[in-house]
C-alpha cells in the first residue's frame, strides 16, 4: 500500500505539489488525473524518491522508497518513454536493470516477449519509435514481477492499437491482484480503465473516490431545447425561475431541468420546440469543470485548461461517459 502524507514540493516560489495526501488502494487500477502541469509527474517522481519532497512523506508498506531492497521486485515504474541510452540495445537495457536487482536473466527474454519486442531486442534503442520506447519502458516496469505498477501517461503518443494494448495490460495486471497507479490528463482514458480516481489540480487534491462515486457526483444532467423563437423561450423560462445557456449549436441548456414541466410550459405559452431532450454531461466535462478553476488560476487562462472555458460543448447523450460500464 502506498500512503502519501502532506506531500509538498516547491520549486523556487512555485508550489508544484501542495500538501497532497492520499492512499493508493491495493489490487485495483487507480487513475491519477489532472491537467498538464497539475503536479502528477512530480508526485510520481517523489513516490520513487527521485525528487526530494520539500515536506511531507511517502510510505510504501510503511517504508521509504530508499529503504526498499531490490525495489524493482516491489514497484515497477514507467516514468517517461525512452529513458534509455540510445546506443544500448533493448536487451542490454533490461539486462543491467535485471542485474541491479538480482532478477534472473531469463526474465529479460520473458518481458521482451510480453511487450512484443523480441524481434528488435538486439537493436539499438535510439532507432525505436515512441511506441516501441513505451513498450520497452513497460517491459522494464514488469521486469521484477512487482506487486505495484506505476505508469506516467502510458498512452501518450501511442497509436490506437498501442492504446488498446496498454489499456488491456493495465486491466489484466489489476486482475492478477496487482496495484496499478496510472496518471493521465484524459478523463476518457481513465473512465475506461480505472476503478478508483485521484484528481489533482495545481498540486492540490480535488477528488479521491471510487470511479462510480465520481460518475454519480459529477454527471451533470440538463435538458436541451431548440426553438425558432428563442426570445419567447427565454422569457418563459425566466418567468418560471429557470435559466438557459446557449450551447455551441444554437440550442439551449437548462441545468437540472424538469423535461415534462418545460414541455407543458412551452405548450401553454405556444412556444414552438424543435428539440426537447434529456442530456447527461460527459465525465470529461465534469473533470474539466473540476480542474478549470485550478488551471485558470495557475496559467492565467492561457494553458491547457483554456478549452474548458472556451468550449463547453455538451456532447451527445451517447458520449463515452454513459457507456463506460459496457466497455469495462
Amino acid at each position, binding site marked *: 500500500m502506498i500512503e502519501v502524507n502532506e506531500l509538498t514540493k516547491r520549486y523556487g516560489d512555485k508550489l508544484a505539489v501542495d500538501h497532497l495526501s492520499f492512499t493508493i488502494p491495493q489490487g485495483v487500477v487507480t487513475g491519477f488525473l489532472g491537467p498538464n502541469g497539475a503536479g502528477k509527474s512530480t508526485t510520481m*517522481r517523489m513516490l*520513487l*524518491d*527521485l*525528487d*526530494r519532497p520539500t515536506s511531507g512523506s511517502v510510505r510504501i508498506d510503511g517504508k521509504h*522508497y*530508499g529503504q*526498499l531492497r531490490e*525495489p*524493482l521486485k516491489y*514497484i515497477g*515504474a514507467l*516514468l*517517461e518513454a*525512452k*529513458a*534509455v*541510452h*540510445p*546506443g*544500448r*540495445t533493448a536487451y*542490454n537495457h533490461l*539486462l*543491467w*536493470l535485471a*542485474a*541491479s*536487482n*538480482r532478477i534472473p536473466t531469463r526474465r529479460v527474454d520473458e518481458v521482451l516477449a510480453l511487450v512484443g519486442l523480441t524481434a528488435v531486442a538486439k537493436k539499438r534503442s535510439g532507432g525505436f519509435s515512441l511506441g516501441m520506447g513505451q513498450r520497452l519502458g513497460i517491459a*522494464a516496469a514488469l521486469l521484477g514481477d512487482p506487486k505495484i505498477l506505476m505508469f506516467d501517461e502510458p498512452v501518450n503518443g501511442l497509436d490506437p492499437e498501442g492504446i488498446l494494448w496498454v489499456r488491456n495490460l493495465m486491466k489484466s495486471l489489476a486482475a492478477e491482484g496487482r496495484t496499478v497507479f496510472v496518471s493521465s490528463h484524459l478523463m476518457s482514458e481513465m473512465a475506461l480503465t480505472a476503478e478508483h480516481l485521484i484528481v489533482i489540480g495545481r498540486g492540490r487534491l480535488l477528488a479521491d473516490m471510487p470511479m462510480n462515486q465520481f460518475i454519480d457526483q459529477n454527471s451533470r444532467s440538463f435538458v436541451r431545447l431548440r426553438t425558432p423563437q428563442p426570445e419567447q423561450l427565454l422569457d418563459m423560462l425566466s418567468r418560471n425561475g429557470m435559466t438557459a445557456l446557449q450551447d455551441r449549436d444554437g440550442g439551449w441548456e437548462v441545468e437540472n431541468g424538469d423535461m415534462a414541466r418545460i414541455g407543458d410550459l412551452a405548450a401553454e405559452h405556444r412556444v414552438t420546440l424543435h428539440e426537447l431532450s434529456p442530456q447527461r454531461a460527459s465525465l470529461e466535462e465534469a473533470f474539466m469543470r473540476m480542474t478549470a478553476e485550478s488551471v485558470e488560476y495557475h496559467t492565467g487562462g492561457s494553458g491547457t485548461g483554456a478549452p474548458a472555458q472556451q468550449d463547453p460543448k455538451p456532447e451527445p447523450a451517447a458520449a463515452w461517459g454513459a457507456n463506460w460500464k459496457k466497455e469495462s
Partner: protein
Amino acid sequence: MFPVLLSEWIKVRTVRSTFITLLLTFVVTVGLGAVVCAVLASTWNTQPASERADFDATGASFSGIALGQLALIVFAVLVVTSEYSSGMIRATLGAVPQRLTLMLAKVLTVVGLVGVVSVLTAFISFFLGQALLGSHRTSLSDPGVTRAVFGMAVYMTLLALLSVGVAFIVRRPIPALAILMPFFFLVSPILNAVPKVKNVAHFFPDVAGRQLYSVHGNTDVPYGPTAGFFIVLAWSVGCVVIGYLLFARRDA
C-alpha cells in the same frame, strides 16, 4: 553492492562510446609518445647540450598523454552524463535508490576499467618509446623509472576519477567537457607559464601528475612524486565528494 557493480559494468560494456574513447586514449598516448621518441632519437645530436643533460627518457615516452587524456576525460564524463542526457538516471535510481551505493559502484567500475587500460597504456608507451630511443633509452631497473611508469597508470586512473566527480557536479555532457578539456589542455599550461600565478598553478592536477610520472620531474615545481600523488588524489577525491554531496541532495 555486488549486483549494483555488475549492473554498472553491464552499462559500461554495452555502449560503443566506451570502446571508442578508451581505444583512442590508448592509441593516442602510445602513438604520440612513440613519435616524440623517434624524433628525439633522430635529432639527438642537434639538441642543445643542456637538453641532453636533463633528458628524461621515461617522460619522453609519456608525451602522448597530453592529448590522450582528453579521450579519457570524454570516457569518464560520458559514463555519468549519458544517464542524465538520456533521462536514464531515473531508471537507474528507481532500481538503486541508495545513491551512495550507486555512486560507489560507478566509481569502482570506472576505476577498475580505466586502471587496466592505464597500466597497459603506461607500459606499452614506455617500452615502445624506449625501443625507439635506441641508445638513449632507460630501463625499469633504473632509479625512479618503475615508479614513474606506475605513476602514469595511477595518474590516468585518478584523472578519470576526477572527471567522474566533475560530471556528477555538472551533469550535462557539454558543460562538463567544456570545463575539463580546456582546463587540462589550455588553462593549466598557460597559467603555469605566468609568473606569480604559476606558484598556484603548480598545484593543478596535471602538473602534480607530471611529477608523478616523470623520473626527474620539473625543478620549478616545489614538490616531488609522492606529494604529486597526494595532490592528484586530493583533487580527484575532492571532486567525487562534492559530486556525491550534490547527487545525494538533488532531484534526479
